[in-house]
């Protein structure tokens, strides 16, 4: 019986020591991956941590954000919340601006000319056929007005419209193709923006480069285009 009582007090003691840790729920404004170092120890990646009450040194880092260093005082409670706002890395902001600028250059020098040329090339055959038919109608309409006293219809305006479309299509194709070909080398030599940041805890490099195909940043992969 005394042995059983001894074991009971032992486990009770263990339970009491577990209750000494405070459940801390971190609300950290950063990216989805949060790295927390408490008193020099890297904590598991979770926003809920059990920390002993008292004063602690805390370091928080998230990709594309600056390393946050501060002290945290954990009260002796069951659970507390702690809010930390990480500051965006200046280099990442520069990268975002560079990415937008790169996007604009790619659009102006490659995408837009190709779209223009493509739209023109699609328009030309349709406008060509319609133009021929409407021109034939116009000639016949003129003839009937002159010889059959027929009233003039809208043949002239319809022909003018389609005629304009036809030449706009040709112009768009020529201009689009010319601009695309002229700027092709320039586009090839455009430097794509890259953002590299080192994880201060693991010393791994975090790299963002720009995928021009799906037009989105990608992590850790570098494509030449």
């Amino acid at each position, binding site marked *: 019986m005394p042995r059983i009582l001894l074991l009971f007090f032992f486990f009770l003691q263990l339970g009491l020591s577990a209750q000494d840790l405070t459940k801390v729920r971190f609300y950290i404004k950063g990216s989805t991956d949060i790295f927390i170092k408490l008193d020099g120890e890297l904590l598991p990646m979770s926003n809920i941590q059990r920390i002993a009450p008292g004063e602690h040194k805390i370091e928080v880092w998230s990709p594309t954000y600056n390393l946050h260093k501060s002290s945290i005082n954990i009260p002796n409670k069951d659970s507390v919340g702690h809010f930390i706002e990480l500051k965006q890395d200046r280099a990442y902001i520069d990268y975002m601006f560079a990415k937008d600028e790169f996007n604009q250059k790619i659009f102006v020098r490659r995408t837009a000319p190709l779209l223009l040329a493509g739209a023109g090339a699609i328009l030309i055959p349709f406008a060509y056929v319609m133009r021929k038919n409407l021109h*034939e109608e116009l000639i016949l309409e003129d003839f009937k007005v*002159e010889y059959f006293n027929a009233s003039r219809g809208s043949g002239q305006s319809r022909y003018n419209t389609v005629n304009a479309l036809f030449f706009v299509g040709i112009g768009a194709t020529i201009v689009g193709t010319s601009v695309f070909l002229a700027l092709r080398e320039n586009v090839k030599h455009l430097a794509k923006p890259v953002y590299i940041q080192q994880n201060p805890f693991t010393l791994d490099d975090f790299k963002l480069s720009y995928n021009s195909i799906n037009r989105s940043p990608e992590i850790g992969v570098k494509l030449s285009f």
Partner: protein
Amino acid sequence: MKMTKHLFILSLITSLILSSCERKPDACLDFGDALEAGTTIRIESCSDNYEFLTWEFNDGRGQVGDYVERQFDKEGSYSVLLTAYSDGAYRSDEVSQDFKASFRYIDRFEIIGESGFPSMEVRVEEEYTSSGGDDGRWTVAGSDGTFTADAPFQVLVWPDLFRVMPTSRTLQLYGRQGLSRTFLGEQKFNFQSVKDNPVTLESEDGKLQMKMYWRYKY
């Protein structure tokens, strides 16, 4: 690079479509220099490589089509401008032709074969005359003998103007001796459709053959 190739091929195809060479139309008219007035006539074209034709006459009338059916009510000089269009009427070719429209007039009658009559009488009669009509009757002496194709017996009508009306007419041939008149043969022709020149009439006994030649005024 692949995109550029596709674009280049697309441009090439478009250029080929655009430059697809439809042949130039060839406007052609060949209906002679005289047409019959007073009846509906059909003018054909010998044009080629066209999509449609327009016909413009100098009397202010125009038509669209492969051929023209019209009537010239007045005799005189006319001209027609034929335009052949192709390639959405972007290509065209014109040809103009001057012609004269005239009624048909009887030029002469020629009779070949053996005849025992000193004179011959030729009649052109309307089948049904409601207002007297314009029947013709010509009697010419000197028809006794044998006449060949090279030396026929002739009854000249021109330059008297006697129209071959585009209606049904009966040609009749009589032999005359003194005051007596012998019927030799007759045949009905519908000159609306009969355009033969000459038209031929056989006598009932088969001994004589009469040909009626017609002509235009011009």
